[in-house]
């Protein structure tokens, strides 16, 4: 019945609206608060940043009129905005908007994720004139450029609103039903090239199966969060196109250094060696993705393809030997995970692997709020979660590494002066090469000392109908789908 479906799709495409199926919708739709994909995949076409990535992932001006002027001590950044840009409500973009946005992002009570990055560095913001912003820093902050490239700018009246999404992008949000659907239409006053689509409609299909059925039946054009176990069947379907990309998609995997059993190096080593990395890749990720080594994955800055500390299949003999040497007598621990099914699957496979060397891993699944309670309170032995950071950090994931720093609020009691030094470099240097080198070094230390050892690097998968132009795999490396750049293949 493929022709049938094609006809249906063609009929539907007459209105020029791209139908996107998503797995979950943000409730707080303020893009300034969250860099999570679930928010940003909707706001991508709506909001814009001061700088943006070009196709080589270099930062180039977008709302900014040019490169920032940085004072000699690196503490004052002055940025000029492009003139003539308007918000979706018709207001012109001004320095006020940028100042309001930045203020929001250091406001502790805003609940914005950016606070983590900004607090302690950003000190003052002033609108020098209608189109010029000055940012004062408390200390040099090399990552700021990256942030300015990822951080959306909001309208000054809207920065604190959680139920609105007002931007300067090619599409504007017409209406949304919380948790259900988001309707976007092309913004006539857009300053850039006119998009091919007349609108984008996001619909939440919480159930993966329903999402895929709808795609196969041509009710939607593109789905995110493709369930890994369905990969084979989608790939076999000639009407569909699958794009699989390496992306800054991490499995956060921390062990608590401060207490038994993970304060014991041999125990840690045994666990790391007995980790069934190949099993996770094959059973959970449908043979996509790579077995993990250190915390930095293939799509991220500082990735080291040479680093091969662990074999994909667990080395049980070696693990048992380590375990025999371990001082701790404990042979069980708890893995705390969130509610994501993928993470649960990972933990299940891991636990089954560790069981083979006589270590019992109890999987404890807790809701999101409780999960972060655990992380914050260091009330875990091993903690696991899936984490996407492409929209806050670009081709890197600084947050994932942060807890390795003893000074970090989330520190798990690992204390290595070299690592601390490297962390400072990463955050402060303006030299990308230096940052990359520091990251590579950190990655090696953390891997070899079995501090952070994610079992795999998951792939990012997008499935779409062939009646639409393919998404840009290059953008996908930074988590960007950029639906506004798609069009219907007629």
């Amino acid at each position, binding site marked *: 019945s493929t022709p049938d479906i094609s006809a249906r799709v063609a009929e539907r495409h007459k209105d020029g609206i791209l139908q996107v199926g998503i797995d979950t919708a943000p*409730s707080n739709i303020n893009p300034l608060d969250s860099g999570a994909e679930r928010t940003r995949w909707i706001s991508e076409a709506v909001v814009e940043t001061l700088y943006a990535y070009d196709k080589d992932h270099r930062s180039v001006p977008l709302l900014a009129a040019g490169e920032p002027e940085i004072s000699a001590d690196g503490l004052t950044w002055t940025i000029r905005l492009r003139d003539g840009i308007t918000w979706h409500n018709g207001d012109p973009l001004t320095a006020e908007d940028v100042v309001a946005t930045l203020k929001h992002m250091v406001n502790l009570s805003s609940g914005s994720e950016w606070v*983590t990055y900004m607090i302690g560095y950003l000190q003052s913001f002033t609108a020098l004139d209608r189109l010029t912003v000055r940012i004062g820093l408390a200390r040099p902050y090399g990552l700021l450029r990256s942030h300015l490239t990822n951080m959306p700018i909001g309208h000054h009246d809207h920065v604190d609103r959680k139920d609105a999404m007002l931007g300067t992008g090619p599409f504007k949000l017409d209406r949304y*039903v919380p948790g259900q659907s988001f309707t976007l239409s092309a913004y006539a006053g857009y300053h850039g090239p006119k998009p091919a689509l007349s609108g984008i409609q996001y619909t939440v299909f919480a159930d993966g199966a329903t999402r895929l059925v709808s795609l196969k039946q041509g009710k939607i054009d593109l789905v995110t969060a493709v369930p890994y176990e369905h990969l084979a069947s989608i790939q076999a379907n000639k009407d569909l196109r699958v794009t699989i990309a390496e992306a800054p998609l991490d499995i956060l995997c921390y062990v608590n250094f401060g207490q038994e059993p993970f304060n014991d190096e041999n125990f840690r080593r045994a666990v790391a060696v007995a980790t069934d990395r190949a099993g996770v890749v094959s059973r959970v990720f449908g043979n996509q993705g790579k077995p993990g080594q250190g915390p930095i994955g293939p799509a991220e800055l500082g990735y080291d393809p040479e680093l091969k500390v662990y074999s994909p299949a667990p080395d049980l003999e070696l693990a048992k030997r380590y375990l025999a040497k371990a001082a701790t007598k404990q042979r069980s621990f708890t893995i705390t995970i969130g509610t994501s099914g993928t993470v649960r699957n990972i933990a299940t496979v891991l636990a089954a692997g560790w069981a083979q060397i006589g270590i019992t891993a109890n999987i404890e699944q807790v809701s999101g709020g409780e999960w972060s309670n655990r992380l914050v309170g260091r009330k875990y032995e091993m903690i696991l979660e899936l984490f996407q950071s492409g929209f806050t950090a670009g081709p890197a994931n600084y947050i994932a590494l942060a807890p390795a720093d003893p000074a970090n609020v989330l520190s798990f009691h690992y204390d290595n002066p070299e690592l601390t030094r490297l962390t400072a470099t990463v955050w402060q240097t303006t030299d990308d090469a230096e940052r990359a080198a520091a990251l590579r070094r950190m990655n090696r230390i953390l891997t070899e000392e079995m501090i952070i050892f994610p079992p795999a690097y998951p792939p990012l998968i997008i499935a779409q109908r062939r009646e639409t132009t393919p998404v840009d795999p290059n953008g996908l490396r930074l988590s960007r789908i950029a639906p506004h750049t798609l069009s219907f293949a007629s």
Partner: protein
Amino acid sequence: MLAVLRKRVTNMVVVVFLVISGMFFLLHLAPASPANQLPPAVAADPQALAEYRASLGLDRNIFIQYWNYLTGLLRGDFGRSLYDHSSVLTSIGRALPVTLELGLLAGVGSMVPGILLGIWAAVRRGEWVDGAARVVTVLSLSVPAYWLAVLSLLFVGQRYPDLLPSAGGFVRFTEQPIANLQVLLLPSFVLGLGTFALVARALRASLTEVMSADYVGFAAAMGMPRRRLLGRVAVRNAIIPTLTVMGVLLGGLISGTVLVESIFAIPGLGHLMVTAYLRGDYPLALGCSLVTAAIFLGLNLIVDLLNHLVDPRTLPGRQAPTGAKGAAG
């Protein structure tokens, strides 16, 4: 009747008030806190946490919060969601009609066939119809709605895509009646199945009992035509115990919407409530629960009034205190 109504409504208000107070205090004593929703790195900062709590007014005395909530309720203000700060009342207002429609469809769609089957089975007691009805109802009762939903979603949904929720979100009856009904067909079937079975069973049981009552015997002995005997005498009296079960059934229906809406992605109150509870969005959860409770109590009230109508004996003071109190026994 009015006095009964007045008394029942007062009672209902008292109960709703109890529910509000109980839930409010319990939720505020609960270990979970809205601050859990902050990014971990923010939540780890005590100052950030304190400011966040203050911004939500959570640092104030619990009784003041309670008072504010109560007075807010009276003004029709159910508070704001912790997540998107949207008005709880607006969210409920959007979700409620959908749930009511679903509930109505499921309710009517289950009770009418349930009543018919119950009558049929009772009339043909001991025959194959009765046996079949018994099997059907017990099975219907034993099939969990969500399992059925999952199966039907996939098996039926694959074949008849129009029965699945469509892209662009749920279509409302006011927008596209046909599409709306199509999409609600499967959910209301799944939702109503249990109610259907219970109604059929309850009615069969009470009708069987009534059929052996003296008054039915007398009517039959007087040669009253079967249909009239059933309608005027038997069913009218048999429906009374079924009506009292109806209150419980309505609770089941409302519970069911919670599940069914989540599975079929129907943006109703149940879905909203589950999301709210899952996220710990307490103002929203509280608001949804209150509205649900009010609806439930209201429906029960209606059922009770119906009961009084069908069975005037239950009206207080209607029973005659006459001298001859009957020589029963």
